[in-house]
């Protein structure tokens, strides 16, 4: 009987060990599911998957703008596109459908937006590009998509984006589309607060820039500075290829 007991004890101990190991694996995989969210963001950055890039949603640093050289040898056809998410009752369209632009040439483009409803709205534009891999070559100095946009009932406004195309753009690409999708985020936002912020930003009164304006280059350490160092040579360094 005692031998049987011992065997039984060993079995129970084994089962317990297996169970603990499996449960650790289980918890790990549950955590992994959530870890996939930031991993996905990083992967999108690196591979240009889904046309996502920090350059689309964050401004370029001044010291990098100073180093920009215009490439007069070629012109890129830049097309503009606008769409409303979920049929938001807003008129939203680019003031120019397309343009020819030299890489490195800094230009400002505008979109017209009009609130056709009787209520104040807060809007957020989300940029994307086609083809996907040009996302990391399109550099923005200013963009209405960096901030939430307040739009009072019936108000019409002009939204601007100031950008250049990085001169390292692969030679085979000669056309690209910059697209904005407008989302209605009134419910999740605060119209008054956003309006005050916008006024402050435009009049430069004690305006403290939102954190991501300064911090974005830390999100992927070294990536931007490394890219900009190669500014002058023709190194093929695009992240999207």
């Amino acid at each position, binding site marked *: 009987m005692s031998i*049987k*007991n011992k065997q*039984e*004890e060993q*079995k*129970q*101990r*084994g*089962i*317990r060990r*297996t*169970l603990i190991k*499996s*449960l650790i*694996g*289980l*918890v790990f*995989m*549950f955590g*992994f*599911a*959530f870890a*996939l*969210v930031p991993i*996905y963001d990083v992967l*999108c950055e690196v*591979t*240009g*998957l*889904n*046309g*996502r890039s920090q350059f689309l949603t964050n401004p370029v640093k001044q010291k990098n703008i100073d180093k920009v050289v215009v490439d007069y040898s070629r012109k890129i056809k830049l097309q503009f596109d606008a769409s409303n*998410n*979920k049929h938001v009752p807003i008129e939203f369209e680019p003031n120019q459908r397309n343009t020819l632009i030299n890489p490195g040439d800094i230009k400002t483009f505008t979109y017209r937006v009009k609130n056709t409803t009787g209520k104040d709205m807060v809007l*957020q534009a*989300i940029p994307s590009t086609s083809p*996907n*891999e040009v996302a990391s070559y399109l550099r923005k100095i200013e963009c209405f998509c960096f901030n939430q946009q307040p739009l009072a009932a019936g108000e019409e406004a002009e939204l601007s984006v100031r950008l250049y195309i990085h001169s390292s753009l692969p030679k085979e690409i000669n056309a690209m589309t910059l697209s904005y*999708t407008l*989302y*209605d*985020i009134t419910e*999740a936002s605060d119209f008054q607060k956003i309006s005050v912020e916008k006024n402050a930003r435009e009049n430069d009164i004690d305006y403290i820039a939102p954190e991501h304006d300064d911090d974005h280059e830390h999100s992927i350490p070294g990536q931007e500075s490394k890219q900009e160092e190669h500014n002058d040579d023709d190194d093929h360094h695009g992240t*999207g290829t």
Partner: protein
Amino acid sequence: MNEATIDIKTNEMAHDDHHGPAKGITRWLYTTNHKDIGTLYLLFSLLMLFVGGAMALVIRTELFAPGMQITTPEFYNQMVSMHGLVMIFLVIMPTFIGLANWMIPLMIGAPDMALPRLNNWSFWVLVIASIVLMSTFFVEGGAPSGGWTFYAPLSTEYAKPSITFMILSIHLLGMSSIMGALNIISTIFNLRAPGMGYMKMPLFVWTWLITAFLLLAVMPVLAGLVTMMLTDIHFGTSFFNAAGGGDPVMFQHLFWFFGHPEVYIMILPAFGIVSMILPTFSRKPLFGYDSMVYATASIAILSMIVWAHHMFTAGMPLAGEIFFMATTMIIAVPTGVKVFNWIATMFQGSITFETPMLFAIAFVALFTIGGLSGVMMAMASVDIQYHDSYFIVAHFHYVLVPGALFAIYAGVYYWLPKWTGKMYNETLGQIHFWLSFVSVNLTFFPMHFVGLAGMPRRIPDYSLQFSDFNALATIGAFAFGISQLIFAYIVIRAMFAGKPATQEVWDNPEGLEWTIPSPAPYHTFETPPEVK
């Protein structure tokens, strides 16, 4: 564990020896016996097979002719989504867990599963989950209708109230499957009879061990995914909402990270069953046992890295397309190894065609058709054409119906005499097979053609030129549905009447399960058998 508790435990066990099953309903509510729980699982999924099948027939009736017949588009979408959820989570997966419960302890010479109370819980949680899922039909707005894949934003931003119930149900289903997997792993690792090394385990045990690991790896990801959906819907997070910095495409990545291994969870145990049956009726040992084990393991590992082949049309860099295309095609290699091993097992055997063998052979032939259309779709360039068409529907029904379901039928006919102690009616079994075989092909083969010609899936109406093939498919579906009533009759009849089965049942089958009397006593292998 200290001495005292062990004494109590052994006393309890000794006590258990003196009586059989409890009487009445509480026997089934409180049971911790692996055979009882296996029976519960199997009967439950048989019931659900008819629930999911009824939904399929609603779909097929609607598609009998172009134009709207009996449903509204909204209700049709609910039928499509619920048919998928029911068949996957409430039919195929529970049946395999039921078979595992019944057979794994018998095959490895264990007295019961390692965690009997967890086992009981995992079954009853499944029942609760299924009630929650079915209740969505009575929620305002109806059942989930965004497909069984419940993509964002269809099922997040545009979620109707029932999606929240579906999320709860999926959490419970996931818990149930995970408990089942934990139990199976613990049992196989710790309760094998002396002398049964890993490379002596029957292939059904091997395939289930690997399946259980897949379950442990991906069910938590599904749980995480539906949790994100829940917070997106109710708590203002933006995991899948672009306006808040999220990304709906990430939903697809997370879903298929679970979803692709899931399809192997539904087929690996089927491989195991077929690998048990073919040798018995070919009267030859299985060809290439070792390679079968390694092939199963490599399929499982590869299945974790191929998920984005479901998303070729969602936008992906070229390198991604090439990677997922190549890895997907590589899966055809170990799968091919298995198919050729099965054929080699039958080669020059003295084969007899009892019902289990018929289903097993049909499995090998028809699963291969489904596998080959899978290789076609693995090609990123042509998948753009196949995507979301009836070709896909044909493909996954070929691997799941004449694939997984036929293997289940084969297994049930094979082991039914061991469970009930009575032989099933062989003539009826043969009729069931031939009706099913003809009608399953009549149902799903035409779908290849309409799919290639451009008929989209999940749409209740279609262009006129698809009419004839769809009418054929509907006729096949009804024939198939009615044939399954024969199966239910055969199984239920064998529970109560029929010729007594012998201990071995078949002609010299291999395995420990044939060394115990038929029907299998309530308690088996209290003293572990010696395996040479």
